[in-house]
């Protein structure tokens, strides 16, 4: 009894101690984060036209029925809100890309990856080329306004371009070779002048068009304020966090810390005008919870704490088939989403033996793609039987651009070990010393396949590639350097790839207004060979003048039949030379939704016209989905 008393008293003392330890901790944390909570209040000062609720007014919690929760876009804390910079790590609001993210900043047009059309956003009606196809003219909507209430004019569009070029931003650098100038003809009319070649034709009309749906219009007055603040220094300009930025989109910053980013609707948003959406987007708040890995994101999705998930959820169908949760994907069955990009294994074409088509094709033929798709992608990719390999993504629009019958003989859908062996034997690449590994010119065929460490789906795919080598007498081992090392090596296309990078995995373009041309260019064009910081493509350093000429011809070609001929020929050359091979199809964005609070998300055949693409209600035309949402329990 005495001992028991001793134990009990000690345990009691400990529990009191623990209580004392835990409570001050919590209070200290509150003190820390309360400082950060002051940020939204500061921001209100630059928004004289509206009085959005601040953190204190919302009390402790965001109303669930007014908040749409996201995950999978934002990793790590937001750095700032500067649309000129690519270093803001602000996934919810800054993404100038094929399907530009238009929640806070807006583009003249919004691209729809489902029908390949560009729909007017800031622009009023369709754009028009002049007869010589050297200039595009478009009008801006009268209703378009900035968040400070001022009119959005052609002068803003023109000055955005001027600033992008002047300060060498990503947008400026990427377009300066194709766009000569953007000028304001009158307050509502913009002319985009293409850069011309020696014959007076636009260098690349495709990129000129894509500019209209890929790049934001930024307010001239605010840009001038920013320029004055940084004294015209380019580095400073792009490092400025721009907490005072003026925007035209329906949402803006409400709160951001290491745990989440919250955007709040601008109830004065110009887009509620009848000339655009005719109403405001439904959710008042858009909250992106910042998780540290996919597992935590999946757990939150299951718990109903995430409504829209842009992350790879392994075996996504189990969420509704096994767990019985109100969770769904864009398509009800595999591949669950629309494949848009082509994660690809590139051969180092200078490695011994890999300069031989037979070796390259044999490896590609022997790879067990169904296993990659079943394991690495848990069937969230179409198979190569369903969508035969080409340079096109699986969308119907791109598939229609080439003649599948012409290249049918060149196709391979994987697991063809006998075919691969026969191909090698026929090329005289055989095992001469009976060690189980074939030799070419007396040297063993031994390679290292690689991708960045921790990219688990890619690593799973690389393991399958390595296994294929063993089946056909080619030694392939895997190696996974850290991304920081990998990217430095792979993008140094001004020198040959070093040992250890014989078969390497990288991405390809998704869906967009310049596709599939841009993807083909990035996969095959020799213009990147010799480039020191090659963030474009063709990392295996393939070079074929015929391919280059075809790639060059596409942007200026307007005859659909001729285009189909060119695309088919490119696919034929690609499947003949096999400089790289696609391992799977991957969606532009993962788009898994939990319908316990919100419903009416974009799904295949949901009756929307134009169809709303499954891009998480924020990219390009998919933002239209925010206007269709309804509450499950209003």
């Amino acid at each position, binding site marked *: 009894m*005495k*001992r028991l008393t*001793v*134990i009990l008293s*000690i345990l009691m003392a*400990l529990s009191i101690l*623990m209580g004392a*330890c835990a*409570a001050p*901790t*919590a*209070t200290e*944390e*509150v003190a820390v984060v*309360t400082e*950060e*909570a002051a940020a939204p209040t500061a921001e209100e000062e630059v928004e004289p036209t509206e009085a959005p609720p601040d*953190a*204190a007014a919302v*009390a*402790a*919690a*965001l109303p*669930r029925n007014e908040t749409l929760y996201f995950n999978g876009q934002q990793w790590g*804390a937001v*750095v700032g809100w500067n649309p000129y*910079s*690519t270093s803001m790590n602000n996934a919810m609001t800054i993404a100038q890309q094929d399907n530009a993210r238009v929640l806070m900043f807006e583009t003249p047009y919004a691209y729809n990856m489902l029908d390949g059309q560009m729909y007017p956003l800031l622009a009023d009606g369709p754009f028009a080329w002049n007869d010589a196809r050297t200039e595009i003219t478009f009008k801006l909507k009268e209703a378009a306004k900035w968040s400070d209430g001022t009119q959005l004019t052609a002068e803003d569009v023109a000055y955005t371009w001027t600033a992008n070029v002047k300060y*060498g931003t*990503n947008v400026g*650098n*990427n377009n*300066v*070779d194709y766009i000569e100038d953007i000028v304001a003809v009158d307050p509502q009319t913009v002319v985009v002048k293409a850069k011309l070649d020696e014959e007076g034709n636009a260098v690349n009309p495709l990129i000129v068009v894509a500019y209209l749906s890929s790049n934001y219009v930024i307010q001239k007055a605010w840009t001038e304020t920013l320029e004055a603040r940084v004294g015209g220094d*380019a*580095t400073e300009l*792009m*490092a400025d*966090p721009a907490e005072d930025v003026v925007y035209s989109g329906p949402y803006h910053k409400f709160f951001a810390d*290491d*745990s989440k980013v919250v955007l709040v609707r601008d109830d004065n948003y110009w887009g509620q005008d009848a000339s655009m959406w005719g109403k405001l987007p439904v959710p008042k708040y858009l*909250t992106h*919870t910042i*998780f*540290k*890995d996919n597992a*935590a994101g999946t*757990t939150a999705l299951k718990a109903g*704490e995430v409504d829209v998930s842009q992350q790879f959820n392994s075996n996504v169908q189990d969420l509704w088939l096994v767990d019985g949760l109100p969770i769904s994907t864009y398509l009800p069955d595999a591949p669950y989403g629309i494949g848009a990009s082509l994660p690809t294994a590139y051969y180092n074409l200078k490695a011994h033996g890999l300069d031989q088509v037979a070796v390259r094709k044999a490896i590609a033929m022997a790879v067990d793609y169904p296993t990659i798709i079943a394991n690495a992608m848990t069937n969230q990719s179409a198979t190569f039987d369903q969508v035969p390999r080409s340079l096109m993504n699986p969308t119907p629009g791109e598939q229609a651009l080439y003649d599948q019958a012409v290249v049918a003989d060149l196709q391979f859908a994987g697991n063809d070990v006998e075919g691969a062996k026969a191909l090698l034997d026929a090329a005289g690449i055989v095992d001469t010393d009976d060690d189980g590994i074939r030799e070419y010119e007396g040297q063993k065929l031994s390679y290292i396949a690689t991708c960045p460490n*921790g990219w688990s789906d890619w690593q799973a795919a690389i393991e399958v590639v390595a296994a294929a080598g063993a089946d056909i007498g080619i030694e392939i081992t895997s190696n996974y350097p*850290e*991304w*920081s*090392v990998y990217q*430095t090596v792979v*993008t140094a296309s001004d020198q040959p790839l070093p040992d250890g990078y014989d078969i390497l995995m990288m991405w390809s373009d998704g869906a967009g207004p310049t596709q599939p041309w841009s993807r083909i260019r990035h996969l095959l064009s020799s213009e990147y060979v010799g*480039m*020191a*910081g090659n*963030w474009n493509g063709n990392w295996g350093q393939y070079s074929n003048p015929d391919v280059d000429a075809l790639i060059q011809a596409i942007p200026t070609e307007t005859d659909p039949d001729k285009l189909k001929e060119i695309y088919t020929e490119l696919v034929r050359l690609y499947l003949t030379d096999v400089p790289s091979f696609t391992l799977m199809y991957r969606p532009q964005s993962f788009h898994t939704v939990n319908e316990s609070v919100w419903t009416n998300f974009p799904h295949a055949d949901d009756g929307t016209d134009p169809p709303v693409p499954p891009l998480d209600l924020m990219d390009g035309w998919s933002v239209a989905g925010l206007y269709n949402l309804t509450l499950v329990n209003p």
Partner: protein
Amino acid sequence: LKGYTKYFGTKFIWFVITFICAFILNFILPRLMPGDPVAAIVARFAQGATNATGVQAIYQRYTELFGTNRPMIEQFFIYVRNVFQGDFGYSIAQYPRTVADVLKSSIWWTMCLQFPAIIVGWMIGNTLGVLAAYLRKGFDRVLMPISIFLSNLPAFGMAVILLVVFAVGLKWFPTSGGYGYDMIPNFSWSFIWSVIVHYQLPFWSIVLINIGGQAIGMRSMSIYELNADYVKYARFLGIKDWKIIGYVFRNAMLPQVTGLALSIGTMITGALVAEIIFSYPGLGTTILSAVLGGDYPLISATTLILSLMVLVATFLIEILYGFIDPRIKAAQSD
């Protein structure tokens, strides 16, 4: 006291020498890693750029900014000068965030999670260890296997078990985050309560792991002490049990105090596993991604703080020992 001055003087000189070595290594080691961190920034600017000269210009702009184009020795002196002005520069991976800003936003979460967890784990573990050694029999037979099990369970295993049982299964606690997914930090009871609730699983995942190891160590030390003559003598004198436990605890805990000091010194590196499993804010994942991304300024700053904390902790322990360890006291008075 004269003897003590010499003792502390020697310890202090070693402290300074170790600090200088650590300072130099903190600077050099990250920079010996393969890979070019500036390339990561350039990647963000150069994505899709076909203009080779444009990309090269961007690269030069940022190597200039971070000084990675200068000789290492020159970089070192710039670093020394900046550090002594309290400027750790920009984080490369999170540019244009400064290192100070990155640390400031997550260091409190780490400290508030780690410090109480280490202290509580240490106290419970040591108390249980003493009790096991003293009470033996049933208590020891139950406690020892549990302690061995706990101390050998990998940290992620414990975190996942707690997550699955108490958050996913029983739904007693939230699955992730430092506060409610639907909350904005503010000074209200509901928010404070949310922080406390979210704190529990990460906290206990660290405490439980700590308890096992501490209990085993303390039990062995205590058994050794219990056989000492002074304990037998105390028993003969009829001194109360709890008082004897008190003596044993004080004598057996000397090595445990050293361990505690080192744990507190290294707590800044964060509870990586708890942070990842529970998506809890903190420095652990920040440091991990800094190391993986070759973010020199951030690595150097965190390792510098780490070195300093460990050095200060061990220095303080040395001083404390000087006073409480009779053997040192005796040696100094010789």
